[in-house]
């Protein structure tokens, strides 16, 4: 029995084939980048950095790097695919089809989230190659990874509809997503921050994502993982609904 309708399956397949056939543009860059991260922070500097909350530094930063890779790729995939389709107008192939707007949105999000997850897994294997680490809470690890990948794929849809030039995509990824991730506790524990900065950090949604994935690997988190999962799930649902509404309204697509 097919889980997806024929038309949704066709669009998901098209989206997946687009990035699977171009690994040098999609999977190779995060692989190389993370080999460099683990080499520098794990091997070269790792021994000179104190353990954080009882974990080797390389192990502590692994979840954050997975989050960074997963959400960047999920976001980039959705925003690029939609914007490029708008730019060259071949998104009309989808828009003039009998697919429902919900099917279109779910197909774009699903394929993009999958890319984020695949990149996350690749980074996990890279990290494991440098320092074998187990998964303490598999359910939470999978749940957080799926939720944040879907969330950022959904945000990527908004970005792809909003963008009017390729520069917009770069701005969104480099100047908004990445800084939030870097200040989201990827490379440090919130415990080491002064109280004011710790409180301010709690306003950064990335903190909840990084700590959620970290909880999945290490059973350690600076914040309540269940609350984080609930809040992120609700946020994801809200953004997906916004995506569907934007497609229905034709925002960035019609006129």
């Amino acid at each position, binding site marked *: 029995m097919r889980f997806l*309708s*024929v*038309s949704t*399956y*066709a*669009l998901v*397949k*098209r989206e997946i*084939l*687009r990035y699977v*056939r171009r690994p040098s543009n999609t999977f190779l860059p995060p692989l190389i980048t993370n080999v460099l991260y683990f080499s520098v922070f794990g091997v070269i500097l790792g021994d000179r950095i104190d353990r954080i909350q009882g974990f080797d530094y390389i192990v502590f930063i692994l979840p954050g790097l997975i989050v960074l890779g997963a959400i960047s790729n999920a976001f980039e995939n959705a925003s690029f695919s939609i914007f490029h*389709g708008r730019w*060259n*107008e*071949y998104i*009309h*192939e*989808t*828009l*003039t*089809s*009998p*697919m*429902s707007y919900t099917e279109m949105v779910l197909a774009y999000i699903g394929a993009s989230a999958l890319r984020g997850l695949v990149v996350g897994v690749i980074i996990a294997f890279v990290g494991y190659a440098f320092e074998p680490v187990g998964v303490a809470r598999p359910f939470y690890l999978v749940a957080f990874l799926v939720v944040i990948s879907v969330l950022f794929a959904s945000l990527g849809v908004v970005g792809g509809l909003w963008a009017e030039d390729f520069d917009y995509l770069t701005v969104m990824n480099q100047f908004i997503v990445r800084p939030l991730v870097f200040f989201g506790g990827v490379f440090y524990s919130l415990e080491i921050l002064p109280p004011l900065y710790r409180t301010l950090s709690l306003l950064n949604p990335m903190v909840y994502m990084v700590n959620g994935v970290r909880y999945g690997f290490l059973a350690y988190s600076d914040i309540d993982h269940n609350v984080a999962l609930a809040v992120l799930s609700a946020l994801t649902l809200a953004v997906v609904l916004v995506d569907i509404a934007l497609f229905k309204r*034709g925002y960035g*697509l*019609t*006129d």
Partner: protein
Amino acid sequence: MPRAIETQDLVKEYGDLRALDELSISVEDGEFFGLLGPNGAGKTTFIEILVGLVRKSGGEARVFGQDVVDDYREVRDAIGLAPQEYNVDRFFPIREVLQHKAGYHGIPEDEAERRADEALKTVGIYDKRDERFDWLSGGMKRRLLLARALVTDPDLLILDEPTAGVDVQLRHDLWNIVQELNEGGTTVLLTTHYIEEAERLCDRVAIINEGRKLEVASPDELMDRGTDTIYVRTQTTPSTAPDLTHLDRVEGVTIEDGRLAVRAKQGGRVAPQVLNELEARGHEIVDLEITRTSLEEVFVELTNDDGEGVRSGEESAGIPGGDSA
């Protein structure tokens, strides 16, 4: 049986600009219908409202009885669109592009593969099936747009300037393909700048300008509304042009290159009366030539002055069906 296309007072506004101004057009199921108009007349806007790429500001639009907004899925499933601009997925070989398009329309993979091959063969670019769009020649790109429109086996085929910029041979090839489809029952909506194309292919044409409908009729009916010229060579060229305006439909007579040039509505019908009258006046007829108004001339006349002249001609000629669409 619902009409293939039916719009009522369709309006599209872009800020202060009214691209469609209460446009009402009906296209019958199985008809080959042409939409003619100068650049910016609203032809593409009209089409894009039907397929959902433009949102209407007012009025109603239905395709096979289904509302283009409320029943958009049914409407889009019925339409195959070959647009004016190249808007093809550049990431995939063209065969896969067609398979994807078929898939979006709910056609299972095996069937989509078969249809993609069939569509590529129909338009004559099957041997290019593994090429990407960017590597095709201009003519092949046009063929691909048609193939993509055909791959879903649409009931309504919309062709927006399908032969723009293609050579004569390809144009004729595309005409033959589309004519065959129409004979097989597919309704065709065609926009074109090539009046000859509309003249040759269309059962009826609508002439629109500035978003408004000026005229809807068959090409023959439209041409009948224009002014034909009957050239008559007589044994001796008269020194002055005889006045024949008392004859029904005759508008005037001049002398051009030693021949009488009689301007009249429906020149073919008037010619016998003209000849009789000239012979009665003692002129010996040696040659006769009737130059019929072209659809192009009618088109220019209509779109230049909003057709006041031709409309009045329609009344005098008593042509029915002028506003039937």
